[in-house]
């Protein structure tokens, strides 16, 4: 696809009106063309503004209570740190543990500095400290298990491992050499079994590294995935995978 063909599609792409096959061809072009990417940013900006033109209806006050109550509920560990250059993500669990310990230590140090600087945020710091404690206890869980994840040929350099604990209903992905997704896209984790897919969550790598936790208790009760995959999805995530996997796990042992 050349620039002229791409320009013809950009507006529809920004409006979300392209068919899958056109999307793939266009995204391939966008990856190598910064000028078209610039054009796309503009088109996206305009498309986003269209949302402002809807008739405004106020939601019920009950929704506010519901959302805030949910937000206040302690969630799964909010992990957004980097996995520091752990090239062999599939290395033995002890290596992961040592790296994690170092990571936690650094994080806690950072948190301390921040706590002094921002005393208004004592609550969040406390919450993070609790998450750290939780993390350490999770990593030392006897039932922590892992399977390697394999990249599709296009992502041949990526290395990833999926870890999970049945007892804590908690899983995480550690990935390295994972390129930034194309503009407007994010990575999304999927739990699969017999053609049924349940969304984990969306995530983005930083400097090629992703380290992201997932709350397994959001899966239907009694439902156990047999495979885990990662796909590229539009910002905000999808309810079902819409692209071929970037990473696929080997079968999860029972």
């Amino acid at each position: 696809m050349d620039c002229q063909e791409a320009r013809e599609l950009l507006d529809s792409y920004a409006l979300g009106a392209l068919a899958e096959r056109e999307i793939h061809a266009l995204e391939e072009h966008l990856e190598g063309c910064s000028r078209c990417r610039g054009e796309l940013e503009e088109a996206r900006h305009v498309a986003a503004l269209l949302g402002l033109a809807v008739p405004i209806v106020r939601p019920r006050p009950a929704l506010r209570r519901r959302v805030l109550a949910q937000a206040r509920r302690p969630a799964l560990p909010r992990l957004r740190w980097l996995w520091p250059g752990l090239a062999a993500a599939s290395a033995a669990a002890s290596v992961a543990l040592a790296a994690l310990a170092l990571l936690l230590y650094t994080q806690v140090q950072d948190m301390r500095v921040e706590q002094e600087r921002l005393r208004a945020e004592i609550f969040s710091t406390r919450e993070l400290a609790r998450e750290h404690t939780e993390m350490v206890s999770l990593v030392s869980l006897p039932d922590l298990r892992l399977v390697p994840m394999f990249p599709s040929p296009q992502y041949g350099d990526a290395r990833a491992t999926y870890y999970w604990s049945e007892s804590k209903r908690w899983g995480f992905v550690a990935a390295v050499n994972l390129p930034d997704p194309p503009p407007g896209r994010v990575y999304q984790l999927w739990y699969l079994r017999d053609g049924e897919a349940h969304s984990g969550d969306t995530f983005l790598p930083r400097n090629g590294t992703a380290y992201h936790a997932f709350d397994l208790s959001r899966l239907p009760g009694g439902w156990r995935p047999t495979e885990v995959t990662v796909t590229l999805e539009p910002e905000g995530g999808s309810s079902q995978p819409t692209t071929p996997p970037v990473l696929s796990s080997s079968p999860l042992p029972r």
Partner: protein
Amino acid sequence: MEEQSGARGQHPQEGGQSYSSLPDEELVARLMRGDIRAFETLYDRYSSLVYSLARKVLGDSHQAEDVTQDVFLRLWHRAEMYLPRKGPFLGWLLTVTRNRATDELRSQMRRLKRQAPTGETNVGGGDDLLQEAHWAQERERVKAALAALPPEQRQAIELAYFGGFTQQEIAQLTGLPLGTIKTRIRLGMRKLRALLLSQEQE
């Protein structure tokens, strides 16, 4: 935690500035550090907009509530998904909302039962909520720009954006050739771009 947040509630201006006057990006930065007041402020600022957009796409208030809840909880738990260098927060929020809503629509195939939108944009409306809304001025600009489009271009764009239809589907819906739909979308978007982005730079 409960009693302290209550006590703090009396002094929201601890830092010298009230939350409601902070810009979006600052609120997002605070929210990422776990500040629930920042989250509340963003909810109050944008929930009616998020809800209204979801409702316009889904045509159902119950589902629009679910999407609104989902969008805001995503913001709370995964605010790092918003990258400030890629543009203003409001644009990101609207994009996420629109994507979630059309995704919901597609996954449920509700489109089969649903009436196709007429392509009309509500141009009246003196809801006093809007007078004070943070984004009221921007909204007027967008409505004026949409109103300036030829109706057939506006319809094609609205079917794509709010209806979640692809170009091919719009051609089927309207019984027009695909090429015509593509042209309408392109011309319409070009005009919107000229109207909206040029004013922004002034």
